[in-house]
Every structure is written in structure tokens, then in C-alpha cells.
């Protein structure tokens, strides 16, 4: 068990506040989505505005990350094994996407 002194606890608290300030500013937060076994994981991701979301393909076959409805806000192009694609969501909303090779693979990014 770790016992914090009063001074250390105060310092830790200040650190948390510091991080919160950075997130609240223009600096982008980050989130990840895995592509495993022909599925986006998590299938629904909720992030604050300004978050950079990175998808990484862990499958043996290529996939894409493609906006489900026109105009296509984002399209990764083919992602081979271990390839990654990132997109920063600047505006709140629900963004549906799918894999253009395997359209039964679908996901949603909810930006709040």
C-alpha cells in the first residue's frame, strides 16, 4: 500500500488538474480502435470533440475505414496487416463507418 504525504497528494492533484487543462485546450486527445477478426473494437467509440482516433488492422487480410454515408468524411484506403489510419474529429456528431472490402464490418464514432 502506498501512503501519500499531504504534500505529495497535493502535487498529484495538481498534476491531474494540469492534464485536464491540456485536454480542454486545443491539444488533441487520442483514442484507438482495433480491427480484429473482421470487427471494429470497440464497435462504438465515444470521444470528446477534437479527439484523434487511430484504427490499426490486426487481421491477416486488408480492411478499410470508410465513412458510411456520402460525402465520405474519411476513407483510409486499404490497410494491410498492422497498418494504421488516423482521423481527428473536429465536430460533434455520430459518425458511422464501415470496411469497403467487407461491408458487414461497421462501427460508429460518437463525438460529444
Amino acid at each position, binding site marked *: 500500500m502506498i501512503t501519500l504525504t499531504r504534500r505529495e497528494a497535493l502535487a498529484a492533484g495538481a498534476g491531474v488538474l494540469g492534464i485536464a487543462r491540456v485536454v480542454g485546450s486545443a491539444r488533441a486527445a487520442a483514442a484507438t480502435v482495433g480491427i480484429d*477478426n*473482421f*470487427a471494429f473494437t470497440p464497435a462504438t467509440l465515444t470521444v470528446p470533440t477534437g479527439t484523434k482516433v487511430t484504427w490499426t488492422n490486426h*487481421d*491477416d*487480410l*486488408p480492411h*478499410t475505414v470508410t465513412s*458510411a*454515408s456520402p460525402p465520405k468524411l474519411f476513407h483510409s*484506403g*486499404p490497410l*494491410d*496487416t498492422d497498418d494504421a489510419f488516423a482521423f481527428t474529429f473536429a465536430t460533434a456528431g455520430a459518425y*458511422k*463507418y*464501415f470496411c*469497403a*472490402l*467487407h*461491408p*458487414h464490418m*461497421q462501427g460508429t464514432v460518437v463525438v460529444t
Partner: protein
Amino acid sequence: MNDPTTRRTALECMLWAGAGLVWTVAGGIPRASLLGTAQAAGQSFSFVQISDSHIGFAKDPNMDVPGTLTEAIGRIRELPQTPALLLHTGDVSHLSKVAQFDTAEQIVGTAGLDTHYVPGEHDVLVDEAKPFVARFQAREAQGAPDGGFYSFDQNGVHFVGLNNVTDLKAGGLGNLGAVQLAWLEKDLAGRPASQPIVVFAHVPLWTVYADWGWGTDDGAVALALLRRFGSVTVLNGHIHQVMQKIEGTVAFHTARSTAFPQPAPGAAPSPGPQKIAPGLLRSVLGTTEVRVVAGTAPLAIIDTPLAG
């Protein structure tokens, strides 16, 4: 003599990555046989289907996809009766790269056969289907500009190559689209119902397994246009295994890949490449390793003899 052992052997020859299928048209009815099985002499017309060569794939279970395609073409070259043509039902490449198209074109070209291609979803990843159409379908009479679909006649058989891999919709299956379906209706109109029809496309036109996207959303519309014909054969790839279904006068068949196998529907968490024990790759390609296990093969079409 109609040797049941030979027929059963052919039945069991459903190894995961075959060289291709020989189709022989006798009396207007196309019949399939595996490459390497006994060929009846004197047939008037045959053709070969290969599929899913996936040039560019280099992972377990196949690090040498050009090698297995080359072997498949080698088998075709050894056929006692030269096929009239070769059909490639898509996923020629793995990532639509120029170098992958180059390799595939060069290897398939060594067959020395009139070859007709349709795209798989792996072939249309760049600039819609345009690079694929320009390279592999340049001589076809396109049903629409860069549409990737066309038809032609050979020895009285009407061949229809369809494209069901572009403009796929989220949550959907393979897709033909209104333009292609309108063209198909016109293409078939006025043809006698007695003319044999061979339709070939990448994704199965019938629903094999919707959970894995193994079907075509508007495939039923196309099939309705084909119902009045007395002999319809629908050839697909995509699922890297042989499946067959007969519905009235329509025979559906999917071909194996020359690259790697995929699991049976629902038999694995995903349709990713099926792993094969090291060293078994070449042996499963060869007909000498075939085992006879009566009554367990799910592949009815293989029981159709070339002569019978």
C-alpha cells in the same frame, strides 16, 4: 466404364486450394471436373475457372502465392483437351497494386488461353475499378463505361461477366446496382431460352453466409432474369472453398482459391485465412494425396462426370 472409386476420388479431391475447374459443355449442360482428374476424350468444348489468386498475399499459410498460381496454370497447360477459354473470377491481386497486376497477368498469360476476368473487391481498391478494367477487360464490350461487366458468346454459350464488388454499402453484401441490372435485362432479352448461359462474378450471387458478407444484395434480381433459361450456370469465387447449390435450372458453384483457404461458414470467428500445417501446402495441391472418404463431401457438383 464408370468406376465409382474414381468418381468418389474426384468427389474427395476437394482440397483447399485447387488448380481450377474444368467445365465441359455437352448437350448444352456445363459439367465440372477437377483439374487432374481423368478427362474424357472427344468433348467438343471445355473451359477452366480459376479464382482468388491474391497476388501480393504472403502470410501463413502461403508465402508463395505466385508459385501456387503458376502451378495451377501448369495443370491447365497439361490438360489433354485444350480449353476454349479461361475465366478468372476475381481477387486477381491482394491490394490492387500495379506490380501485383503485372505478376498475375504474366503468370496467367502463360496458359496461352483466351482469358476473361471479373474483379474481386481486392482488385478495385484504387481509383474505383478503373485500373483493373483497363488492364484485364480492355477487349471486353463493357456494359457501361468502366463498369467491369460484359458478355460474349462462345460455341453457342452466352457468357456474362458481372461486377458485384464496387460501390458496396455499409452493412450490405455484394452489389450489382441498377445500371448493371438494366444492362443485364437488355443483354438477355431476345435470347432463346434454350441457349446455355454461364454467369461469372466474384462474390456469390446467392447468399452463402450473410454474417460474413458472402452473398449479393440484389443477386435475386439478376437470377430472376435468368429463370426462363433452360441451363444456367453461376460461377463465383470469393469464399475460397467449393460450394454448390442447384435451384431449378440454375446451378451455383464457387471455386477454390489458388492462394489460401477460408473457413467454412461460421466455423471460425472470422473468414480470415485458414492456417495449414507447414509442409502440407504442396501436398494438398497434388491429386496424389487425395483420400477417399465416402459420403462426407459436401460438394455435390464434383459428382458430375465429364462423360456420362
